[in-house]
């Protein structure tokens, strides 16, 4: 069914080429309507007469055609399961794809939902609906015309099908087609052509059954602000931007808002080593964190330095116009900063002149309580401090008042202090653990919805049994004394170990990893889902699995006493832990015992235990120590990061106790063998698949990264040598202070922060000497040992299995490009999972301190201009102890402000107040309490207890009364404020 008409299409690109392409127009494209009797339909009808849209504007059955702007702006409305029977034109689909890939993705999901009755009509290749671009017509106009043409055709086409006498007799109202567009010009033209047309807003208003849908409409204009004064300089047009960028007058880069100071941000530009600083509301010029912006560099005389000041936005109400006085404050701040900036530390400063591409997404947060009752306009406060407040309209403010909600930005006009947005959905009541977890997951883009039925359909059928065929393919290791060692409460056990003496006096060591790739076959829905998730995410008291629970906690988990499939890596080693030979094979194992680190440790230590497991563990432990020493001699780094565990109440999910993760010998024992297995496998797959092996590398950090570490150490009289990993490791070992036992750990914490992220990559994409893993001092490394919780390991398993002939290969496995994309996603997911985990710990720390007040020993980690960064080892907690307070005064401290003056010495980074001097690493005692005055950002308040500074420190002696008084101060102040407001 190929038409013989041929059209050509010309496009220009680069150095102006005329490109001629064939464009076939067809007569076999169906309209997808069940009413149609003419079209050649090769599919199930998508457009039905059921689920008709009930609109008061069009009181007859109708299908909808959407214009591109409706899809782009009103995606939240479309995502609600309200609009049905929608014709999606490929013109629109292509335009959406071109304009925003994220919206395209969301829209595609709607289109694929068969219950929604969205039908994709390939109007571009239909011989009746193709619109050839006319001379002097812009691409946009042509697309608009194509959309109108298709709408018109649909309408006529359906009329023709419904004009039969039979149909007239049935007495039904005829199906029509309605075009939704927010483009006034397009609407006018459509009306002139006799097409039923309306705007998205009017149409949604006319849906009487769904009044709340109105909230989700995106507004481009807010009525009362049309005549407001411009508060921001205008943005340059796209053309001017491109011209400026081409002539190097402007610089382009992603904008990063400062977390601490809402009037400050930076743009990292390729040409500059340091990011370009942006200060002040006008210079920021409506950029939102993440946007790709164009920056104009200020002349060097106007350059400034980062303020190092923590500045938070004050509450402004929806109807309040920011007073000039307040704005003045901000400028004063800026002036001060600029004046104070000594020429030495000035950094390139610029102002944002245009936005190349917005990276707006959905934001979690809460509604700010409104002063006026019954108003529809509200201010939304995002949870992420880098995001400005957003103005929204909603009718359900009362209901949403104490809920976490999601909002997206629609536009940011010049005359509005804040961007305009609209309500998307509510997550649940504030402070509820489930809601807060949801916020963390959303903010970190962690896919966490339930596994779909399609995904679950690829799970093995229960009861699952091992067949004879399975046994014949695998090496039977059920008789070996294999055991696993994991943290307490671990249900996804993916590794187990064994060690036995060989007749020739050598030892055989085996690492057995859960054979997840046996259950997850490449390319099916289960595999795709796991690949998309990339990793299991651990929150406090909650685990978001990468693979369904049946696999993660049951079939793949190497629990004790049960037969399980494993992928084994077995070495023969001599008593000095030299590897003599290695082999890989799939196996069936039966773990003799699943132990915790503690249990394993006590078995090793208890000399009376002489059974096979105890012997095996002792051998392993001895070998691990040799391996570790060898690794250290090679220059592997021992890094530290404060890690804590929460004991969570199983019912209320509230944290009961905090403990710092303990390191036992057995932890290190398991770790050593996992490292050995990973390295052995990495070497193997890199030789077998030189182009497409999935490996992991840890780049050496650039020397400048170490600056803060080297400086801090120097103040303490230690020289940190960063020439090589080995020297760094040695010099770190030497950083020991007799009077400060925690000093070495702190130095290591600082070192950790200098490091780069370790990343997955494909062997073919880099030179061999770049494979290096800096932290482990290994020339090559990969992840093999945790396939239950990491997708990279599944890939490595598949590669390894293919190389030993245990499994078949498939196209994607050996495709470098698709593997590269996969690695990219894994790196991203991995990073986000880490951040989400940390956010969860922070959340639970807050829950833990709710209503508590404790004095704790801590250490100064950094000295800042107006604060001390304090680390509490007991909780692995880091926080800021403010030394100067801003004008509003926090925590009732403003009364002491005038009396106590801290002087900051930039030379040696100290803060001095009278006789008391704070250096980095000094021990301090601080009192911790939770400030809940801002419900969204509960924060821990650090107050100084020791060393004692009169008028500033909290009194230690009268802890009971004074502490309470201070703690009571903020709420009382707040209530006063509240009264004033009313």
């Amino acid at each position: 069914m190929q038409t013989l008409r041929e059209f050509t299409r010309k496009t220009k690109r680069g150095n102006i080429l005329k490109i001629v392409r064939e464009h076939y127009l067809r007569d076999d494209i169906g309209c997808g309507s069940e009413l149609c009797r003419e079209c050649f339909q090769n599919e199930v009808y998508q457009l039905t007469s059921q689920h008709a849209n009930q609109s008061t504007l069009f009181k007859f059955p109708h299908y909808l055609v959407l214009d591109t702007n409706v899809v782009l702006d009103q995606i939240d409305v479309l995502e609600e399961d309200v609009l049905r029977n929608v014709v999606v034109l490929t013109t629109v689909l292509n335009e959406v794809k071109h304009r925003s890939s994220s919206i395209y993705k969301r829209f595609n999901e709607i289109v694929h939902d068969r219950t929604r009755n969205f039908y994709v009509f390939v109007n571009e290749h239909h011989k009746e609906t193709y619109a050839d671009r006319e001379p002097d017509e812009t691409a946009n106009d042509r697309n608009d015309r194509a959309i109108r043409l298709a709408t018109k055709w649909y309408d006529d086409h359906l009329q023709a099908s419904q004009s039969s006498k039979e149909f007239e007799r049935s007495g039904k109202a005829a199906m029509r087609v309605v075009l939704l567009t927010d483009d006034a010009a397009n609407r006018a033209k459509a009306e002139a052509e006799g097409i039923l047309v309306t705007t998205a807003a009017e149409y949604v208003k006319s849906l009487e059954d769904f009044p709340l849908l109105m909230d989700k409409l995106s507004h481009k204009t807010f009525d009362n602000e049309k005549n407001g004064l411009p508060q921001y300089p205008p943005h340059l047009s796209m053309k001017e931007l491109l011209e400026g960028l081409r002539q190097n007058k402007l610089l382009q880069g992603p904008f990063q808002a400062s977390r601490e100071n809402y009037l400050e941000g930076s743009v990292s530009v390729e040409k500059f080593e340091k990011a370009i600083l942006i200060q002040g509301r006008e210079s920021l010029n409506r950029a939102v964190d993440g946007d790709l912006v164009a920056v104009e560099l200020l002349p060097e005389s106007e350059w400034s330095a980062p303020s190092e000041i923590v500045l938070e936005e004050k509450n402004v109400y929806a109807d309040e116009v920011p007073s000039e006085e307040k704005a003045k404050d901000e400028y004063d701040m800026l002036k001060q900063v600029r004046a104070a900036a000594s020429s030495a530390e000035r950094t390139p400063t610029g102002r944002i002149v245009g936005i190349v591409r917005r990276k707006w997404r959905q934001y979690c947060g809460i509604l700010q309580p409104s002063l006026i009752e019954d108003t529809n306009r509200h201010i939304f406060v995002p949870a992420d401090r880098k995001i400005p407040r957003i103005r929204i309209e909603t009718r359900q403010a009362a209901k949403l008042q104490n809920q976490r909600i999601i909002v997206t930005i629609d536009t940011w006009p010049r005359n509005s202090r804040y961007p305009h947005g609209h309500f998307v959905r509510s997550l649940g009541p504030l402070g509820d653990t489930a809601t807060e977890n949801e916020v963390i997951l959303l903010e970190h883009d962690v896919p966490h919805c339930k596994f779909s039925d399609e995904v679950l359909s690829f799970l093995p059928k229960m009861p699952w049994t091992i067949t004879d065929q399975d046994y014949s393919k695998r090496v039977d290791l059920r008789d070996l004394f294999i055991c696993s060692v994991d943290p307490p409460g671990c249900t996804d056990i993916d590794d187990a170990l064994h060690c036995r003496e060989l007749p020739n006096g050598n030892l055989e060591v085996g690492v057995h990893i859960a054979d997840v790739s046996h259950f997850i076959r490449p390319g099916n829905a289960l595999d795709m889902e796991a690949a998309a998730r990339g990793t299991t995410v651990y929150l406090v008291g909650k685990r978001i699995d990468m693979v369904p629970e049946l696999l993660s906690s049951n079939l793949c988990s190497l629990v004790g006493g049960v037969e399980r499939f494993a992928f084994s890596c077995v070495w023969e080693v001599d008593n000095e832990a030299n590897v003599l030979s290695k082999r890989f094979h799939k196996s069936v194992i039966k773990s003799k015992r699943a132990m915790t680190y503690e249990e394993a440790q006590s078995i090793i230590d208890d000399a009376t235990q002489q059974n096979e497991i105890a012997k095996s563990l002792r051998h392993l432990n001895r070998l691990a120590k040799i391996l570790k020493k060898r690794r250290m001699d090679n220059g592997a780094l021992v890094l530290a990061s404060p890690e804590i565990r929460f004991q969570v109440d199983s019912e209320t999910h509230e944290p009961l106790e905090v403990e710092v993760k303990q390191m036992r010998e057995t932890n290190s024992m398991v770790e050593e063998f996992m490292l050995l297995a990973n390295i052995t496998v990495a070497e193997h797959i890199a030789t077998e698949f030189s182009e497409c092996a999935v490996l992991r590398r840890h780049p050496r950090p650039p020397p400048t990264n170490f600056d803060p570490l080297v400086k801090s150490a120097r103040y303490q009289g230690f020289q940190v040598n960063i020439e090589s990993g080995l020297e760094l490791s040695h010099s770190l070992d030497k950083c020991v202070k007799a009077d400060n036992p925690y000093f070495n750990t702190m130095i290591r914490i600082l070192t950790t922060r200098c490091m780069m992220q370790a990343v997955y990559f494909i062997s073919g994409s880099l030179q061999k000497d770049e494979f290096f893993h800096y932290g482990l001092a290994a020339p090559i490394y990969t992840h093999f040992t945790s396939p239950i919780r990491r997708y990279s390991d599944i890939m490595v398993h598949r590669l390894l299995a293919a190389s030993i002939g245990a499994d078949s290969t498939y196209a994607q496995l050996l495709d470098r490009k698709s593997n590269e994309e996969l690695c990219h996603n894994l790196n991203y997911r991995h990073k986000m999972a880490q951040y989400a985990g940390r956010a969860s710990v922070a959340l639970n720390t807050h829950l833990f301190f709710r209503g508590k007040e404790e004095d704790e020993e801590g250490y100064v980690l950094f000295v800042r201009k107006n604060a001390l960064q304090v680390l509490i080892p007991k909780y692995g907690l880091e926080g800021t102890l403010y030394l100067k307070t801003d004008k509003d005064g926090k925590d009732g401290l403003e009364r002491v402000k005038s009396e106590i003056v801290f002087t900051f010495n930039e030379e040696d980074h100290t803060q001095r107040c009278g006789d008391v001097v704070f250096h980095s690493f000094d021990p301090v005692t601080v009192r911790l309490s939770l400030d809940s005055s801002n419900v969204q950002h509960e924060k821990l308040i650090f107050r100084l207890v020791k060393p004692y500074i009169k008028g500033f420190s909290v009194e230690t002696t009268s802890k009971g009364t004074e502490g309470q008084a201070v703690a009571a101060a903020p709420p009382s102040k707040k209530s006063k404020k509240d009264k004033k407001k009313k």
Partner: protein
Amino acid sequence: MAGKYDLLSEQGLRLDGRRPHELRRIKCKLGVFEQPDGSAYLEQGNTKVLAAVYGPHQAKGNQTESVINCQYSQATFSTAERKNRPRGDRKSLEFKMYLQQALSAAIKSELYPRSQIDIYVEVLQDDGANYAVALNAATLALIDAGICLNEFIVACTASLSKSNIPLTDISQFEEVSGGPKLTVAALPTAEKIAFLEMSERFHIDHLETVIETAMAGCREIRDILEAAVKEHLLHMGSASDFAKVG
């Protein structure tokens, strides 16, 4: 570059609106020139090729076998960027070898000892699958020259979309934006493959289906060319009552 677009939309249409198994439109004409012994002009979509055949004539030197000599060239104006292409560039030489290889499988060379057959192919417009179109044009020119062939030798390309559906007759746009390309030159009736070339590796699981797709394309092209030859003969023969013999 590869994988920038998916070659097949979810609605089952390719970038230019074809379905996976559809060829581009083919137009051809035999006997376009008088000077050579045989000539043909062939369009497959926007790829346009001219072929001329001289011979059989006496071979130079002491050849006992027949000699098949090809020349492949591309017109300066054939691509969007006008490049001067001297005849000796690597790609032309490569294609020349491939043409000789495929054509010698079709020509009944035992009938032409000590003779030489010269085949000249010029690509006038390049829109992908140049080799395949050049070979098809050469076949037509050989037929026009009255040279004995075992059967039609035709070539067709095929590729694979991301969803692993094989595609026939790849256009230039699909070549640059997509996956691997396979070219098959075959004797369709005998089901013999004379020549096979891959631009990139296919996975072994898919290779067979892709070859089968290309073969199906070859058969279809053969039918079209055969019809064109018959048409041409009828036209020629009508001058000498040949049509009535039919």
